[in-house]
């Protein structure tokens, strides 16, 4: 089964899809989190609107992306892109993998935004204030203060996102059915086809073992990230629920290590 070219192809698609969607959704989520972290008129409404894509039933959203959004003739995406000169693209068949990646990014960006927003709001504002007084520009304080602080939140987003996005099934089932050909057949869809279309239960079970083995690798790393979040006293004291881990040692000078000497 491991020598089967179909399996290796599905593995490749899975890696491309997961990497693409995770990276894009972290970037979009970070941008959204930075925008929403400021106070402005209607911030609550904007935040509420932004989390909607994550809540809409993925199967329903995928069907709508396939039809009303991405249809080559009547779809609204081509209508919007029309003035830019890219008006009649059949996205789902010409760029199938990109289509799935975009739909998954749309779905997962709010998830990343929520995690990164949690990170931004746990940052010690007085450090930023001090940097400003010392003449740091916005870009500098983002690069040297905010980004290092966000690192572990980005890590958490990446590992949780990878675990979920590796399992992408709904959107592929609804939009491309793994096609055209096998252009979007990732491991979960390959397994589904093997088991429930070709009724090759033995091979499907073997594929299942591969999926589980791959997940164990990611999950081991994920568990390490999460447990580090729980045991890092500086972060933990401010954002995480560690009251039973460190009930008596809430550091009062939390964040001190981030202040440049």
């Amino acid at each position, binding site marked *: 089964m491991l020598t089967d070219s179909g399996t290796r192809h599905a593995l490749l698609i899975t890696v491309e899809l997961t990497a693409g969607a995770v990276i894009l959704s972290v970037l979009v989520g970070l941008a959204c989190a930075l925008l929403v972290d400021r106070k402005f008129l209607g911030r609550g409404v904007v935040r509420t609107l932004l989390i909607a894509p994550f809540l*809409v039933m993925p199967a329903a959203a995928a069907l709508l992306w*396939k039809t*009303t959004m991405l249809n080559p003739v009547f779809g609204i995406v081509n209508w919007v892109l029309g003035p830019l000169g890219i008006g009649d693209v059949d996205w789902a068949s010409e760029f199938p993998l990109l289509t799935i990646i975009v739909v998954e990014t749309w779905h997962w960006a709010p*998830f990343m935004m929520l995690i990164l927003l949690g990170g931004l709001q746990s940052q010690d504002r007085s450090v930023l204030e001090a940097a400003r007084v010392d003449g740091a520009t916005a870009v500098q*304080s983002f690069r040297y203060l905010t980004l290092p602080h966000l690192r572990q939140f980005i890590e958490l987003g990446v590992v949780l996102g990878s675990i979920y996005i590796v399992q992408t099934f709904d959107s592929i089932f609804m939009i491309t059915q793994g096609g055209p050909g096998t252009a979007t057949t990732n491991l979960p869809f390959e397994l589904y086809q093997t088991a429930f279309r070709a009724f090759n239960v033995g091979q499907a079970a073997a594929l299942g073992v591969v*999926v589980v083995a791959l997940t164990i690798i*990611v999950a081991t790393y994920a568990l390490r990230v999460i447990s580090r979040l729980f045991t890092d006293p500086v972060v933990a004291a401010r954002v995480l629920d560690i009251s039973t881990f460190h009930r008596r040692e809430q550091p009062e000078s939390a964040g001190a290590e981030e202040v440049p000497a």
Partner: protein
Amino acid sequence: MSESRIVGSSRLSGALLSALGWIVALGLFFPVFWMVLTAFKQERDAFTSPPKFIFKPTLDQFDAVLSGGLNAALANSLWVTIASTALVIVLGLPAAYALSIRPIEKWQDALFFFLSTRMLPVVGAIVPIYIIARDISMLDNVWTLVVLYTAMNLPIAVWMLRSFMSEVPTEVLEASRVDGATLWDEATKVLFPMIAPGIAATALICVIFAWNEFLLAVTLTAVRAQTVPVYLVSFITSEGAFWARLSAAATIAAIPVLLAGWVAQRYLVRGLTLGAIK
């Protein structure tokens, strides 16, 4: 506090960033808005180029889907969601208690074991689950989904409930014990009322995951136990024909969870990160 982030920002660039926030939000929300709008169209208004934003709204599509099989699927989804969520809370509360307030030995290991079960992809287990369900004649049965969704949501619920319980000051519980409260009294009269919002938030997260689940539903159900996402599959084949009707069905499918998520948005991140981030 926000001004400090945008260091040296003038009022103008602040206004630009606010506007950008609105534009991005409306852009990402647009597919949801378009779904709801299309649901109120006649089919001929749904298929137009350029797309129509102004039209005479109608409820015809909702009538059509509700009399065409969606209500049976809705009933199944509703039952599966409510039953599995209730089971999760009933099983999760004692588990969380034993992992926070009176921690068992090696409770951290137990906690991370729970977490690791959540990381097993459903697709890795689907073949054995299918074979077991087939062999005990539980295919196309709502109870199969109830059991599986309970198992699927239990780790998240235990982590969330535990994180809410560990915020309760130990002094309060100790005081009730000194006053002679039994374990049952301590739990039902002191602890659970104190974490009631947390229990509600946990339940809402479980509702979201159970309602939206597709892979298990599509492989294990057919006609009788079909849930809403499985019902939507029938629209794949009729592509190009019934956009307004599809939008109406999708709107009905999506709205309950959308509202639940908006209500619980304060707790959403906590549930999604298994309680790791508040």
